[in-house]
């Protein structure tokens, strides 16, 4: 599956579930993130690699989740006991251990990113400690693109404090080594502004950041920034809907504006 579709499907999934955490290869800086993943998986340590531990956790977590669904009708006590047996809590200590072993080295980044993501829901202290360490030890790493991404999703949908997210994006952007890394981070900052419907000066700045990202970003960022800028400046309530001109299913050409004078329910749909 190509990355664009994966990202879109992932965001669709986010909209309908609480699965906010732990997705590994999503970032505007996907190419960078991917090659880093490959690097990381080739680095072995006495206790195995990040990928192995991540997969191991994913497997037990999915099993636990399925049991959660099955336990819906159980008593409150049973549910509480099940909640307490959430394997992620155990894995948080395992990831912390690994992050400590690799402290200050590039290998630590994957563990810390994981801790930030999964900890946000299960152990806030662990999450914030991982974030602080990433910002302290790895601020100029190209792998911070993944943090910019997960930070944005958490601020947009999981209650991460808005101002702290924006400030952190600024910090990452200011230390980025390349214009493309900077553009990707500022894209995610603008994404937060858009998703939280933040108005005023921040919104104006977001549109400027996006315009700049379209110029300086990599292909992925250019496309994402173009879409988001259009959404923020043309697709808000109170704005005249952009024209659509195209063919219907029979091949006849028509325009959205052909229906002026009528209320239009515009439905992006598919028979899936």
């Amino acid at each position: 599956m190509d990355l664009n579709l994966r990202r879109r499907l992932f965001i669709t999934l986010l909209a309908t579930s609480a699965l906010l955490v732990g997705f590994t290869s999503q970032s505007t800086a996907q190419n960078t993130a991917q090659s880093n993943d490959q690097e990381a998986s080739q680095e072995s340590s006495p206790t195995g690699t990040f990928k192995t531990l991540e997969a191991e956790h994913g497997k037990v977590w999915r099993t636990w989740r399925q049991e959660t669904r099955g336990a819906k009708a159980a008593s409150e006590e049973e549910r509480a006991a099940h909640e307490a047996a959430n394997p992620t809590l155990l894995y948080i200590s395992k990831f912390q251990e690994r992050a400590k072993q690799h402290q200050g080295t590039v290998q630590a980044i994957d563990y810390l990113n994981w801790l930030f993501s999964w900890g946000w829901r299960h152990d806030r202290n662990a999450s914030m400690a991982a974030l602080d360490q990433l910002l302290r030890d790895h601020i100029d790493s190209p792998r911070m693109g993944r943090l910019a991404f997960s930070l944005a999703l958490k601020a947009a949908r999981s209650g991460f404090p808005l101002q702290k997210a924006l400030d952190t994006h600024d910090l990452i952007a200011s230390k980025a080594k390349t214009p493309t890394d900077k553009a990707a981070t500022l894209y995610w900052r603008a994404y937060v502004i858009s998703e939280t419907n933040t108005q005023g000066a921040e919104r104006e700045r977001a549109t400027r950041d996006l315009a700049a990202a379209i110029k300086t970003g990599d292909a992925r960022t250019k496309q994402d920034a173009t879409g988001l800028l259009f959404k923020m400046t043309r697709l808000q309530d109170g704005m005249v809907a952009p024209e659509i001109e195209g063919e219907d299913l029979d091949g006849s050409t028509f325009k959205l504006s052909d229906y002026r004078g009528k209320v239009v329910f515009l439905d992006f749909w598919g028979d899936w």
Partner: protein
Amino acid sequence: MYPHERSLVKQYQGKPFVIIGVNSDKDRAAIKTIVKEKNLPWRSFWNGPQGTRGPISTAWNIEGWPMTYLIDAKGVIRHRNIRGEVLDRAIAELVAEVEG
């Protein structure tokens, strides 16, 4: 969604209201058959052979499907992604605006 959409079309027959789709199925011939078989009585733009990655949804930055917009008779976006009774009330209000 289909039953709701069918009933909206029926309810607003002869009134200033229309459903316009942007269909993201890759196979145009197949979706034409489905539209007929399932009796889906609204006109759709076809988003092209790239499906959900086609030109119209790309331009409109559609990230989650289905995505809907409610546009008034002047062409102004008034609501996004509303459903159920909220949608019913909003349509009624906007149609009432047109009919005065």
